[in-house]
């Protein structure tokens, strides 16, 4: 058992480095960058955990994963138990282990991080989840719930919808997910690239739901094919999790030149439609030797690293603050740098410039300097007079953000929205319409996978309560 190891011995173990594909190899293909820990590495890392009584790390996780408990089971080499603990708290551990911003969440509060390096909670979570996927036969089986006879419609097949569907199915409700696109996963499939999150993981999670009896109907756009009121009359409850997929435009000159993409279009072409990735794919993508990506979040990193993989020799991030303010996960920034991405910091775009054929030829920029922190707590950039310069680029990608898409809400007049068009919902997802719940990015604005999942989970619990009362 793990408690045989003394605290001193635990402290002596160094944080395990994640094995990776070499940068020069991976920056030319779409294979997953992080290879995953070996069994021995996972055990060593698990043994670094001090099993703290006050569980500081747990407070950093938005869904309160029982971190010391699953790590203890792993360190004790009881993987079925580790998997069971993890599953109980987190419906998509294989996803979260890969894409959570651990450095600002669970790992940020790990006591081992105070003096040295925190326990690699994300790597361990991924290890256990991947093990569970490879060993379905060894998992502790769940008893099939008794059917309640109640039905729930879930709108959107992203992390919030998938999580809610799983939770509700496990309670015996009949769940149908309606998805606008032709495939499942939401941002996990069309946004986050394969080199960070292999699509196979989404397929497996979806297969688990299918085995639980969840029906998934793609190509159904709620608000167009069916309305919320039609769903309300056909189902006993509705959970809306349609994300925040509306690109924010830059509103600078040249935005409609050929070769200017919004991040969603660029990523959808490559990830969902497989443009530039398979021989027999009919969806085209514009490639260039020089690509400039505007923004500093995960989306910007995904675009720039994708552009690099499509053959860009010069792939640039253009960001108006400095690296310290970038909202992207630190690992993505590190990987991007290793892959040869250039970081053009403290730079704001003024205009996109084109040639006489109206193809993008570059970006007119301005240098910025950082002043004191603004309301968001980040230092506010202001332009440096007379610092204009041009960057040459054949493709420009706008990755400055997304907001709520009004397609669904426009046809549901009774649904209360805030001034940004997000659905107003309580902590447990209740909206202004009885029996209609909402969660994920459509409520929060662009947030994170784990927060969307957390919403799916708490809404599922509230829906279950609601159905019992009904």
């Amino acid at each position, binding site marked *: 058992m793990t408690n045989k190891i003394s605290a001193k011995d635990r402290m002596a173990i160094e944080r395990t480095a994640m094995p990776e594909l070499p940068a020069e190899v991976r920056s030319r293909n779409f294979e997953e960058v992080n290879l995953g820990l070996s069994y021995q590495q996972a055990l060593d890392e698990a043994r670094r955990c001090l099993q703290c009584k006050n569980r500081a790390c747990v407070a950093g996780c938005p869904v309160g994963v029982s971190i010391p408990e699953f790590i203890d089971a792993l360190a004790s080499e009881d993987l079925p138990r580790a998997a069971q603990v993890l599953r109980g708290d987190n419906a998509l551990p294989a996803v979260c282990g890969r894409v959570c911003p651990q450095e600002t969440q669970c790992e940020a509060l790990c006591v081992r991080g105070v003096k040295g390096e925190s326990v690699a909670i994300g790597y361990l979570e991924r290890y256990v989840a991947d093990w569970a996927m490879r060993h379905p036969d060894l998992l502790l089986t769940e008893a099939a719930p008794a059917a309640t006879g109640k039905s729930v419609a879930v709108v959107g097949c992203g992390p919030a919808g998938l999580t809610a569907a799983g939770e509700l199915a496990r309670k015996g409700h009949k769940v149908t997910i309606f998805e*606008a*696109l*032709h495939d499942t996963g939401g941002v996990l499939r069309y946004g986050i690239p394969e080199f960070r999150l292999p699509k196979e993981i989404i397929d497996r999670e979806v297969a688990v739901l299918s085995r639980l009896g969840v029906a998934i109907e*793609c*190509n*159904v*756009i709620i608000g*167009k*094919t*069916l309305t919320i009121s039609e769903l309300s009359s056909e189902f006993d409850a509705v959970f809306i999790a349609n994300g925040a*997929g*509306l*690109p924010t*435009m830059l*509103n600078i000159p040249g*935005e*409609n030149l*050929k*070769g200017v*993409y*919004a991040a*969603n*279009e660029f990523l*959808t*072409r490559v990830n969902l*439609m*497989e443009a530039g990735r*398979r021989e*027999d*794919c*009919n*969806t*085209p993508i*514009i490639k260039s030797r020089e690509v400039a990506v505007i923004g500093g979040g995960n989306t910007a990193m995904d675009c720039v690293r994708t552009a690099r993989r499509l053959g860009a020799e010069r792939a640039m991030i253009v960001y108006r603050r400095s690296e310290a303010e970038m909202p992207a996960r630190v690992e993505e920034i590190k990987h991007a740098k290793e892959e040869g991405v250039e970081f053009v910091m403290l730079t704001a775009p003024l205009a996109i410039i084109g040639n006489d054929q*109206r193809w993008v030829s570059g970006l007119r920029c301005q240098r910025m300097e950082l002043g004191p922190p603004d309301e968001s707590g980040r230092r506010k950039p202001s332009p440096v007079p007379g610092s204009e310069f041009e960057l040459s680029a054949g493709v420009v990608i706008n990755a400055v953000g997304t907001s709520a*898409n*009004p*397609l669904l809400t426009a046809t549901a007049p009774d649904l209360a929205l805030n001034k940004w068009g997000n659905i107003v919902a309580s902590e447990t997802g209740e909206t202004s319409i009885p029996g209609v719940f909402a969660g994920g990015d459509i409520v929060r604005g662009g947030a994170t996978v784990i927060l969307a999942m957390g919403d799916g989970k708490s809404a599922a619990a509230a829906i279950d309560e609601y159905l019992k009362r009904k």
Partner: protein
Amino acid sequence: MFEIISNDILAENLHKLVVSAPRIARARKAGQFVMVRLAEGEERIPLTIGDADAAAGTISLFIQAIGASTRRIVDTPAGGFIRDVAGPLGKETHIANWGRVVCVGGGVGTAVLFPLVKALAEAGNQITTIIGGRSSRYIILADELTPLSETFLVTTEDGSLGYKGFVTGPLSEILADPERIPQAVFAVGPVPMMRAVAEMTRPQGIETIVSLNPIMIDGTGMCGGCRVQIGTETKFACVDGPEFDAHLVDFDGLGDRLTSYRQNEAEAVRHAAEDCKLAKEAAL
């Protein structure tokens, strides 16, 4: 999976497909479209819902085979399946009783125009329909449009049917005649044709509506690929359109963005010929 119930050839490279899609058939309104992906690995392309039969649960698509995706769709026989059909998308046409209306269709735009003419006729408008094509072989939906129109005119470039020339010919005669001047004009077709119509009706300030055809990916407002400049605003044609006030549309920008993926040499050659023809038409 969506079954193809029938697949008929209406004219050279123009097919009418009746597809089983009960929910879409029930929900659709004139002016709306579907996003279609034939199979794994294929593009998603927008196609107007030409007609629908809610009782039978079917929609009709009029498809002009101009490139890889449309060709493979029309090559799929009745009894075959389309993997993905999503919709109805876009705003429905604002149908009113304007009084006298001229509806102008060019090429496959005629297919997009057909449901509009039907809805306008049902609303009690007096409709003059003008359909243009390269030659008689390219004139489509004449039998369907004739009973809906008070006056039905055809133009062909080679004079093999109806007026010799372009749709803009009969339109200019109508605009010049105080007895026949319309309260509204609907135009659907190649960009240069729509631009030409917009310029013709602008001086008299006649309400003119065009249905735009930018390249689309999702059709739900998510990607921004279909953006068009309407006056001073950037609009997403898939959610804000596809119909817009012709006098506000930046046709140059639209036409230009449609060439974004025209890299292939063979395509370039074919389009060069087409552009030459369209440029002539626009000059009229």
